[in-house]
């Protein structure tokens, strides 16, 4: 059972990497990335815009969403928790394209509309995960902490936040990955980014433009995803990783 599972996983992996290699060989032989080679300056400018939009909106979202998540999980404000979770769930049904478009409606064309839209859109997963992380902290643990005379802020800093960290980082990771994709739409509100080439490609039926925009966006998303996986490993206390493992086995 265990062996067959491993074999199947290996075969799937091999097929996947094979297809990926085939794709890149095909793309290179048809000089699909010629746009990058021909216009490196433009490429780096677009990449810079893309990354700026993602990082600024993401950082602002973390700064607001994490404290908000902490705030609604305080005993006094617990009653407002369902409201925030409800809004977060509802908000996620609104398509990212619409959020961008609405931001443009208020702020006009330009990079600030894109940053605001992505900021609003990334609040949701971060708040959700912050709340879920804090809620998942074992009640008995909090009880023990209170019983030993920890103040509320000591419980927050020493117990709740370290134990919720995995979940919070996962929220930031989701938000940033979504952001990288949504930032590709920023072209529509005149904010630049790698989306410029993708849309040019679509409009001109030019595969070189398409690929030179789409592949870097994808790689960027995968890179950020891995970076945060690593961060999760580096930042989360060892004891918690062990706890998780014990729970899953």
């Amino acid at each position, binding site marked *: 059972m265990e062996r067959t599972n491993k074999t199947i996983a290996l075969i799937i992996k091999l097929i996947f990497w094979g297809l990926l290699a085939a794709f890149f060989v095909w793309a290179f032989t048809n000089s699909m990335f010629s746009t990058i080679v021909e216009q490196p300056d433009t490429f780096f400018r677009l990449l810079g815009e893309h990354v700026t939009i993602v990082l600024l909106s993401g950082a602002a979202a973390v700064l607001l969403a994490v404290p908000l998540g902490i705030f609604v999980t305080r005993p006094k404000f617990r009653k407002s928790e369902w409201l925030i979770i409800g809004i977060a769930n509802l908000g*996620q049904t609104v*398509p990212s394209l*619409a959020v961008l*478009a*609405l931001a*443009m409606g208020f702020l006009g064309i330009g990079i600030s509309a894109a940053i605001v839209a992505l900021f609003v859109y990334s609040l949701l997963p971060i708040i959700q995960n912050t709340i879920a992380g804090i809620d998942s902290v074992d009640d008995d643990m909090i009880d023990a902490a209170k019983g030993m005379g920890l103040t509320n802020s000591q419980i927050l800093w020493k117990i709740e936040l370290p134990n919720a960290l995995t979940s919070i980082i996962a929220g930031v990771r989701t938000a940033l990955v979504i952001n990288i994709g949504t930032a590709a739409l920023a072209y529509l509100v005149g904010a630049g980014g790698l989306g410029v080439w*993708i849309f040019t490609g*679509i409009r001109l039926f030019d595969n070189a433009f398409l690929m030179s925009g789409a592949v870097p966006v994808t790689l960027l998303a995968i890179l950020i995803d891995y970076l945060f996986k690593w961060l999760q490993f580096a930042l989360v206390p060892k004891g918690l990783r062990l706890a998780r493992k014990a729970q899953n086995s």
Partner: protein
Amino acid sequence: MTIPSLALFGIMIPILSLINEGIGTLPAVIALVLYSQLPIIRNTYTAINNVDPDIRDAANGIGLTTFQRLYKVELPNAIPLIMAGVRTATVLNIGVGAIATLIGAGGLGGIIYQGILRNNTTMILAGALSVAVLALIADLFLRLIENLFTPKGVKK
């Protein structure tokens, strides 16, 4: 899931244009199918994996075959989580579907796109609302189905 939707469209267009289907519904459908796989497969796997080992043991103990065990014990217990995966995939897809309009696949996203082109906030709002409402209705509908198929004892 990590692959941004527009980028996935962008990568698929050149590949599909090999068979002259570059722009239009086909890349959209393929992308949506791909996107749905991850949440559904992941949840289904977790759900069946998480069925209480004691229950599985008892099922084996009373002589159920592997197939009977899956059909009578594991799946009924796993329904809530499997359906949660289906719901996530659906809501996600309705959002991504709105972007599909940009590669000429039509759909409600078109209203939003037209709104952007004409700088018409009302149109954007109308488009956004219809997509959101569609997602909510789909979610509600799937919850109903879930409710119908979840055995009473498994509900909490």
